[in-house]
């Protein structure tokens, strides 16, 4: 009986698409739900080339990866329901989906795979509600999806990969980036990303924070200042920059709402964005029928999200009897190898350790 109910995948970003593809390939009934009018999640605003190896589609632009995943899902005939917001789920795995913001549907799922991504963090400072202050993702959506520039002179807060990538892309769309502000003493993003901005003359302000934003009806200038050892601004170092846009790129937090409603236990892992659902090596949450993949299971990158999606898809298909033990083991092993490759080096090791901690914790409970 359980076998006839669909596996419901929420979120058609890289993680959700890969999970649905694996499930469909194994012959499991699957429904993929996404709030947007186009699948791909955040991939379609990623116009830069990805890192990784050939297996990770490295050197390929994000939107191209989105398109190819999409083609694959179409070829497989996956039931993708767009403009469908999942607004609730109960412990009985009944998914409350709202279609085209016009009608609701309750879908009973045999397994639930949550690939709902993450929410951008905010930073509060006087004036941060002024028009012109926005998240980096907002600016990226506007320039790369809608091809509209939110402003001409941009200050970016946060030097992680999101901040520097969006900064570069704003310049590609014709804006000036007047600076990148980083509270920590050293820059967060990959050196190759920061170097693209540096050679375009963009100044980096490390050990610096934004003190206030000012303007009458919209942003006209921002004041920045160096910070002391406890991250408090030093008044004597204040300087004011003429800007019409501030982009906040100060990290992401896993979207927890649906997994909380489903009753999944959580763990706090600062390296991966804060509180997130606990999960095992197959991406299964503390509720055995619910899987969590991609940023919602700890903020990383699209490349890791895809592999996590595959893990969950394979395991869910196996758990419903759509895959043999041997096949499952083989697929899981090769996926884990690729995942491990992505979690190496100065940037990756921290994430590798954090993930290991989550898995270990899930076994203890």
């Amino acid at each position: 009986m359980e076998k006839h109910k669909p596996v419901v995948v929420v979120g058609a970003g890289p993680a959700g698409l890969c999970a649905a593809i694996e499930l469909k390939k194994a012959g499991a009934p699957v429904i993929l739900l996404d709030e947007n009018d186009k699948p791909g999640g955040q991939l379609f605003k990623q116009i830069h080339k990805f890192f990784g190896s050939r297996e990770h589609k490295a050197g390929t632009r994000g939107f191209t990866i989105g398109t190819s995943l999409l083609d694959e899902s179409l070829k497989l005939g996956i039931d993708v329901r767009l403009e469908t917001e999942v607004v609730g789920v109960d412990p009985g795995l009944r998914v409350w989906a709202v279609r085209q913001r016009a009608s609701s549907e309750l879908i009973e799922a045999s397994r639930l795979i949550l690939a709902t991504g993450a929410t951008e963090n905010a930073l509060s400072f006087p004036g941060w509600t002024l028009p012109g202050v926005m998240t980096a993702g907002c600016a990226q959506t506007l320039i790369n999806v809608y091809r509209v520039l939110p402003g001409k002179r941009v200050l970016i807060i946060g030097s992680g990969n999101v901040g520097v990538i969006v900064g570069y892309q704003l310049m590609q769309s014709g804006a000036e980036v007047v600076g990148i502000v980083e509270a920590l003493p050293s820059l967060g993003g990959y050196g190759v990303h920061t170097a693209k901005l540096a050679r375009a003359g963009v100044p980096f302000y490390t050990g610096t924070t934004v003190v206030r934003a000012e303007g009458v009806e919209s942003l006209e200038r921002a004041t920045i200042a160096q910070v002391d050892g406890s991250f408090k601004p030093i008044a004597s170092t204040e300087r004011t920059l003429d800007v019409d846009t501030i982009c906040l790129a100060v990290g992401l937090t896993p979207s927890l709402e649906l997994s909380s409603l489903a009753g999944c236990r959580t763990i706090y892992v600062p390296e991966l964005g804060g509180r997130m659902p606990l999960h095992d090596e197959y991406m299964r949450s503390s509720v055995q029928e619910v899987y969590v993949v991609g940023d919602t299971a700890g903020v990383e990158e699209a490349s890791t999200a895809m592999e996590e999606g595959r893990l969950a898809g394979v395991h869910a298909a196996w758990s419903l009897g759509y895959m043999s033990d041997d096949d499952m083991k083989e697929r899981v092993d090769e996926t884990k190898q690729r995942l491990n490759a992505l979690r190496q080096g100065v940037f990756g090791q921290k994430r590798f350790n954090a993930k290991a901690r989550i898995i270990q914790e899930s076994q203890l409970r």
Partner: protein
Amino acid sequence: MNSDDERYICRCEEVTEKEIREAVRAGARTVTEVKRWTRAGMGICQGRSCKRLVERILAEELGVSPAELEPSTVRPPIRPVSISAINMEETRERNDREEG
């Protein structure tokens, strides 16, 4: 203190950092309690923008790590849904068809 206290934390309800700190000093120890005391997070976005900020202030005031804070409760719908869209007519019809 300084003007920083007057900065908004909750964009929707326009709740200031000062109000949140006052609520914590008056006994609020979770995001949910801060919400009840100050309305921070009660607005149309339901705390999606300010939850992390409130957590940071709470942790700071209580002298604990954010990891130790109690996770906040969630109730559906997790996105704004129009009254007219809370309508499962189609699901019921389909179920009836399948059962009949």
